[in-house]
């Protein structure tokens, strides 16, 4: 009886898994089909005439005449630079808020930053666009990177970690003559590696996956990020070329799915920590 119940549960879990995985498998399979086969309405998971054309054309820039390689490079560099900036400025701010008690307006700033977590993106979207427009920064990498640096999530996450760091170690270092910078760089940062990795995964995925801001903040084809580019294709006249579109989404999904699978553990940790406030 108990064994049968377990078996039923596993079968149910497999049925549910098919719902989640099938669209991804279908994407992968379609990416290796020519447009004719992709539109044929046949349900063949293994392409009748498997082809690498969609990928080869993509890399050559011939795929629908869009610079996919450039888009991927844009997304990766914007994601990596943005993440690096966030890690540096957030960890410094969190250190100051958690450990430097002579920081002027410390409590006020902490409350304001935490309250800012509640602000919906719609409130800043249009004025941010107008601000970048006025500064002449629309269609630049600055526009794709800078807005992500203002979020308080990382400051809050690291603040909680630094605030619970044992005082004694810091005191001992201070007696040995270490200054604030040395305590931050040599004692607190090395102790926070795992939570910094978590924040890095979170931030990278957030920047890489955003498509609405890059869609409006870039105007020329070569400045698009891959997500904004795909959104353009999806709303444009390319929707019938499923083979090519799926090759493009496969390329787009690859980096972030890899990051996700490798970093799943710390990603899950960050999510559950944000829930247990």
């Amino acid at each position, binding site marked *: 009886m108990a064994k049968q119940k377990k078996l039923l*549960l596993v079968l*149910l*879990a497999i049925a*549910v898994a098919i719902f*989640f*995985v*099938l*669209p*991804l498998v*279908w994407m992968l399979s*379609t990416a290796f089909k020519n447009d004719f086969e992709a*539109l044929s*309405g*046949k*349900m063949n998971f293994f392409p009748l005439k498997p082809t690498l054309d969609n990928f080869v054309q993509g890399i050559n820039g011939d795929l629908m005449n869009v610079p996919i390689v450039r888009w991927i490079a844009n997304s990766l560099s914007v994601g990596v630079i943005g993440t690096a900036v966030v890690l540096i*400025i957030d960890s*410094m*701010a969190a250190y100051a*808020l958690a450990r*430097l008690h*002579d*920081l*002027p307006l410390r409590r006020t*700033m902490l409350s304001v930053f935490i309250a*800012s977590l509640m*602000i919906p993106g*719609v*409130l*800043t*979207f*249009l*004025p*941010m*666009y107008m*601000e970048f427009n006025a500064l002449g920064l629309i269609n630049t990498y600055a526009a794709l990177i800078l*807005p992500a*640096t*203002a979020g308080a999530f990382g*400051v809050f996450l690291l603040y909680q970690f630094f605030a619970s760091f044992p005082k004694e170690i810091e005191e001992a270092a201070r007696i040995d003559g270490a200054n604030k910078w040395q305590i931050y760089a040599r004692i607190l940062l090395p102790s926070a590696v795992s939570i910094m990795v978590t924040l890095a995964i979170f931030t990278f995925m957030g920047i*890489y*996956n955003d*498509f609405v801001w890059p869609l409006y903040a870039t105007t020329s084809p070569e400045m698009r990020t891959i*997500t*904004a580019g*795909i959104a353009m*294709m*999806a*709303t444009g006249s390319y929707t019938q070329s*499923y083979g090519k*579109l*799926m090759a493009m*989404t496969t390329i*787009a*999904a690859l980096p*972030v799915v890899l*990051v996700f699978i490798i970093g*799943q553990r710390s990603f899950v940790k960050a999510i*559950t920590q944000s*829930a247990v*406030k």
Partner: protein
Amino acid sequence: MKSTAVSRFTSFLFILPYLAAFCVFLLFPILYGVFISLHNFELLSTEHEFVGLANYIEIFTPGTYLSDIFFRGLWVTVQFVLYSVPLLIVVGLALAMLVNALPGKLRGLFRTFYFLPYALSASVMSVIWLMMFDTNAGFLNSLLMKLGIANVPWLTDTPWAWISLIITTLWWTIGFNMIIFINALNEVPEDYYEAASIDGANAWHKFTNITLPSIRPVMLFIMITSTIASFNIFAQPFLLTRGGPGDATKVLLINVLDQAFIRKEIGSASAMAIVMALLIIVISIVQFKLTSGRKGNA
């Protein structure tokens, strides 16, 4: 330790870079948005006439264009919230319980399967489902045809457009809620269940008398985050149904961005955005107050 002016200054240097980013890319845009909303601010012109609260008054004057697109968009958004939030909670909890009931070795594997779509960007997710839902060549209609069922207009007719938006939303985001529920379920002390078993409680009684009360705070957290997320619905109707059929799935955010970038009236679009943001903030505060109040009674 004595604190000198120099020490306070060096402490301040640590927070300066983030504080600058916060002021320039969060605080300033909020204030600038309020300023813009008080003007007749057209995207392409340089002269901006001060109009006071006129944009806001227009939103709340029935019969005006602004009021029309704001409240129609809001109603569509509210519909999406009403359809999606209960499912995001119930299905999320069901998946968490399913994963937890599996043999230990399989848990991680299935958790990854159910959570994987969450890693994708909205545009990748939408393009995949555009293909799944395609009326003529799509996977779903091909499957239905094999079963002898006529084509379903997944994206081009109601109620199918709504059903498609809900399916994609669940597929894409439910993993997040599931993860939080799994964590909450694991924190319920095992001996509660053992004690209940000794008292002869069946599975349903254990669920309603132990599981649900124990995870209530997490349940309310998910209710709040899911409501806010659903209020911000944009990508799915923007890329999948394009607001259609007609305006049936044209959510508020689509109307705000259309007003700003297609009609190029940033002033009134900003007023719409501010009213929408205030609504979201009020809803989250109300839900938060309700939940912290109830926790005290529990």
